[in-house]
């Protein structure tokens, strides 16, 4: 077969989001890849400047529907930092709780999608069926299955009732059993292992050089977790382990994610047992005093960074978001060289990409010549490659 080019995306069954990858093939081997991002660029950072602080939280929540709680927590922490608000202890615990529930649902979602990408639909069905358990609990607590809207500046919006706690405990029991099952059986299924093992492999050094974060980095043996390294919310009081693996391939990533689900279940149990009493929010002023802050959050996909600057008005002056997928996408481009067509979907899915978080536009304006230049992905990674 002669060389040919196949487009993956913007509309492609392997991608749930519109992104364009063009693969130049030599037989079944990928010769080169051209990534074109930006289909989901909406201009959220700019739009934040037109929103009041209250409205901005909901806009930030919709950066990404899967890690919505991560983004809002990160943003609220930055704003609380600027305003000098002390978030009540109970609110911090509830934030952590929702954060861990989100991690569980996100990792189960990943497991299911990974199964789907390699044609193992049964795993997809089972993982998503069991994911409904955690979604039901989230819906009962927050009132929505996906965009929870739990955070507000100064605390959380809804309290945990006794019934919620009971429901959560029974949900945890089901999940514990199922996650144990996936770890034992799904990862032992030889055809599934065969598709993950050695695929999308990066070394520890590469993981550090490419600046990967979250499970992608931890799967390659980089022991980094913001919940431990730079505690926020209630994590300074909660005991837990950081799960790492050595291999750096997708099987290791799957092991890390499943291990993290078990850790998250442990964290949830601890929170339910040690939930402090008290108020769930402090009143936030409508105008945030001038200042700037940077906040970090360990989202299910990795480190999420928000930078917020206030000029003292009722609207943010600048919001900057660095979502985890942006840090990980270089690893995809790296491990894509020389792979076979069959591995393309699973490698893209391997970092659990979230392009709606990632699509940013960088526009350089030369003040002197007045030349305006919009950077493409390749320019970006070439310029800022360490």
């Amino acid at each position, binding site marked *: 077969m002669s060389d040919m080019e196949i487009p993956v995306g913007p509309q492609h*069954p392997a991608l749930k989001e519109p992104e364009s990858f063009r693969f130049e093939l030599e037989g079944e081997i990928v010769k080169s890849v051209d990534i074109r991002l930006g289909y989901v660029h909406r201009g959220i950072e700019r739009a934040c400047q037109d929103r009041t602080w209250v409205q901005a939280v909901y806009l930030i929540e919709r950066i990404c529907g899967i890690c919505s709680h991560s983004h809002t927590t990160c943003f609220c922490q930055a704003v609380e930092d600027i305003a000098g608000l002390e978030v009540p202890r109970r609110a911090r615990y509830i934030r952590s709780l929702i954060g861990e529930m989100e991690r569980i649902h996100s990792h189960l979602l990943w497991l299911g999608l990974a199964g789907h990408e390699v044609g193992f639909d049964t795993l997809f069905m089972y993982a998503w069926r069991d994911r409904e358990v955690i979604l039901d609990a989230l819906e009962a607590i927050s009132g929505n299955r996906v965009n929870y809207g739990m955070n507000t500046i100064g605390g959380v919006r809804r309290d945990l009732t006794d019934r919620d706690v009971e429901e959560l405990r029974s949900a945890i029991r089901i999940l514990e059993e199922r996650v144990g099952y996936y770890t034992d059986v799904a990862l032992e299924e030889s055809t599934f292992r065969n598709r993950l093992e050695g695929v999308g492999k990066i070394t520890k050094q590469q993981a550090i050089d490419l600046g990967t974060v979250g499970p992608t980095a931890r799967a390659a043996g980089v022991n980094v977790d913001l919940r431990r390294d730079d505690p926020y919310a209630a994590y300074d009081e909660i005991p837990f382990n950081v799960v790492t693996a050595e291999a750096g391939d997708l099987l290791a990533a799957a092991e890390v994610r499943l291990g993290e689900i078990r850790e998250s279940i442990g964290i949830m149990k601890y929170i339910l047992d040690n939930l402090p009493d008290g108020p769930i929010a402090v009143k936030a002023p409508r105008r945030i005093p001038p200042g700037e802050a940077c906040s970090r959050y360990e989202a299910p996909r990795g480190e999420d960074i928000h930078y917020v600057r206030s000029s003292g008005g009722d609207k943010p002056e600048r919001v900057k978001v660095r979502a985890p997928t942006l840090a990980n996408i270089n690893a995809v481009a790296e491990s894509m060289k020389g792979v076979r067509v069959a591995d393309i979907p699973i490698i893209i899915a391997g970092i659990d990409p979230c392009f709606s978080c990632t699509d940013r536009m960088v526009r350089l304006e030369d003040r002197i010549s007045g030349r305006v230049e919009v950077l493409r992905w390749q320019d970006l990674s070439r310029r800022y490659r360490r």
Partner: protein
Amino acid sequence: MAIIDDLFKILVFPGFLFVVNLGLFLEWLDRKIYARLQNRVGPPWYQPWLDILKLLSKEDVIPEGASRFMFTWLPVFYLAVTVTASLCIPVGTYAAIYSFPGDLIVVLFLLTLATIILFLLGWYSGSPFGRVGAVRAVTQFLAYEVPLVAALLTQALLADSWSISLVMARTTVGFPRFVVVHLTALAVALISLQGKLLRVPFDAPEAETEIVAGPFTEYTGRRLAFIRLAERTEMAVGVGLVSDLFLPFPARLGVLGFVISAILVTFVLSVLRASVARFRIEDTTVLAWKYILPFSALGMVLAIIVRG
């Protein structure tokens, strides 16, 4: 009246209508079992028929870059070839329409032709996905055709005949002596059939998440309906062939036995589909040549030894 009788045989039973409907029924059965294995409800029983009807009533699109002639006629050829193959399959004790010594070879030839048509379907559809799928279909065909032939050959050796109806009649002759050979050949036949029908784990030629729908990506409406009918017929032929040649029921219980065997075979194929992930095309080839082919050769050697 002989002409009417022949026409009835060719068009209704056990010919065109029966085999197409059997194929659609097996599709429903497969989807239903697959759904139940995944703890879902699955489609209602009339689903495959309505899918076909709906496709027939939709717009036909010939994309730019596709060969007009090929695009129009290949789906028809595809259906014609598979239906022709079905003419040689006896339905239990109900004799095939067209049966002669050596009809097993003809069926195998026609099924091979179907794969070639599949390749052409994809190659001339003017889509890169279609081309990749087409090449994969041929690669996989090289891997699966040989074991399938070897498995059927084993049965033919045991029965000492190339005629489907004779092999069927002699399936259970000398039963305890042949059982090991028999089961070896059956296992190889089931796995190769799964590959032949492009089902998980051997669905790389039409892997949804990789190349959308492979050779069928660009087909719409009536043409897609023909392709689906042809695929279902191919399934009915393949399943029917395995039931006839390997299971004892068709020869004992007639038409009922044939349907029972077909359901059993489909069940096994569905469970296989639900319990594994897709192989890469390279792995498929390696697996076939390294394990399945030696295994089928072993079966053949055993058959020769047992026959003495």
